[in-house]
């Protein structure tokens, strides 16, 4: 049990041991070990990102099938579970089409950069006991800062495509991301006020000592989830893509591998949002019997499934309603929540 719990920690320790051995044998400076370990961590995060995206793409299609009473993909592999791998191979082998009048360097750069913010954010999320690549004192502030930048590559894509639909889609992304960031930050602030720390591990240990913060901050949890859906541009807030009005929105002029990168980034952004929600509100990796990282994956699985469920159940919201809901409902609600939390924290 203990071994399975620490399996990834042990792998990291083994890698460090091997690097130290090589470095001391060759008489190189010690700092190289740390650099090599950073590379190992990044490799782990990239592999995790790809596996997570592959799994959730097929799970989304399966779950959508169950919700709509149809089988979903069911041909390739056992009950269709290998479908995403075939799709990924197809996307990689497709021709890389760039519009003639596009802003070519930015068109490429946008696809490459889309993947960077979720990867940077994943580094600071604790996957299990001792399984956090970047244990910052200001963990949650760092994550907020990094995820803020997630709208920039999409705006770049919208501009660089030189296409009306793409440009409108790109502007909608910024519109939505900047607005929903405000209630999201207030939701995070409420949690930080109760736990009294910005550090992700300390927030988890607070919950281990007391109670899951979803019990103390239910309103903040609901608002966080809503804002996370809007930030990830998922239905019912998928206006940037809005296929009934904008063809495919920002992704209109993207195909093949470049489209695949955006697709991957979308699922990684969702995973980051559910990982943060798990850590802040649902006790993170703590839980009985099973190893910590299994608990983390299970909790994120529940939240991801909720995201998918809303996408296949709710219709798209009108553009002005999206913003009105944010500024007239969520922001005042969260301000009130912060006020009440402040008073209660002060009195207790």
């Amino acid at each position, binding site marked *: 049990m203990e071994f399975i719990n620490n399996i990834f920690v042990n792998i990291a320790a083994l890698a460090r041991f091997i690097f130290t051995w090589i470095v001391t044998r060759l008489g190189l400076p010690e700092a190289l070990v740390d650099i090599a370990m950073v590379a190992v961590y990044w490799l782990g995060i990239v592999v995790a990102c790809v596996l997570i995206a592959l799994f959730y793409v097929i799970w989304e299609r399966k779950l959508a099938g169950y919700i709509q009473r149809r089988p979903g993909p069911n041909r390739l592999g056992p009950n269709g579970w290998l479908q995403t791998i075939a799709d990924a191979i197809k996307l990689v082998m497709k021709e890389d089409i760039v519009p003639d009048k596009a802003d070519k360097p930015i068109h490429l750069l946008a696809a490459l950069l889309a993947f960077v913010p979720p990867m940077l954010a994943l580094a600071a999320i604790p996957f299990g006991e001792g399984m956090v690549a970047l244990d910052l004192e*200001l963990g949650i502030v*760092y994550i907020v*800062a990094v995820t*803020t930048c997630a709208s920039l590559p999409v*705006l770049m894509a919208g501009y660089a495509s030189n296409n009306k639909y793409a440009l409108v889609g790109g502007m909608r992304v910024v519109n939505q991301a900047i607005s929903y*960031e405000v209630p999201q930050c207030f939701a995070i602030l409420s949690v930080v006020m109760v736990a009294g720390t910005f550090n992700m591990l300390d927030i988890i240990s607070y919950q281990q000592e007391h109670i899951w913060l979803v019990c103390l901050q239910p309103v903040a949890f609901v608002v966080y989830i809503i804002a996370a859906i809007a930030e990830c541009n998922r239905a019912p807030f998928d206006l940037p893509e809005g296929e009934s009005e904008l063809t495919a929105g920002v992704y209109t002029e993207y195909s093949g591998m470049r489209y695949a990168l955006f697709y991957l980034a979308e699922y990684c952004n969702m995973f980051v949002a559910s990982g943060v929600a798990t850590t802040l509100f649902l006790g993170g990796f703590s839980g009985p019997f099973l190893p910590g990282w299994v608990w983390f994956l299970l909790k994120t699985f529940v939240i991801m499934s909720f995201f998918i469920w809303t996408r296949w159940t709710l219709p798209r919201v009108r553009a002005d309603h999206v913003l009105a809901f944010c500024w007239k409902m969520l922001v005042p609600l969260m301000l009130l929540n912060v006020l009440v939390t402040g008073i209660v924290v002060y009195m207790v």
Partner: protein
Amino acid sequence: MLHTLAFLVLAGLTAIFGLGTLFLPNMIHAFLSFIGCLLSVAGVFFSLQADYLGAVQIIVYAGSVAVLIVLALLMINRRQGDMSHTNKWAHKWVGGALASLLVGGALGSTILYTHFTGWPLMGTTADIQPVVYADLADKLLNEHMVAFELMAVLLLAALVAAVAVARGHQAGNGKE
């Protein structure tokens, strides 16, 4: 050693992106270069162990420049994306020279009067005092409470003014 290298790389990037902001002919390219510049400055903050400053730099500046881009796209009729058509101030040489002289003078004198002891972080990182964030909150909300509140009121006034301008415009359109 490593920290100095990181600082030099980040400082170089900041300078390159800053020059890009000034000299790129395409407005959007200039904006993107500006974001690169701001992110590099955040990187400098991180490399100097000022995590809070770095995070705030990203949230407040780099993240919000996106709004600036959207506004620029909405308001400016960019023909070939060339700024010489839209920037009416680009040819005011005297004013520009005066402004850059003032800013350059202020920065230069600050640099001259600072006593540098060596490259940043040439020594160990251990002698940097870790910031206690509770102290920061205490400074902002206790010691400098009045200034903090005044700033908040100023921002609120700006917000109300923006709403009033937008509303008035809309109402005017309605009457016509």
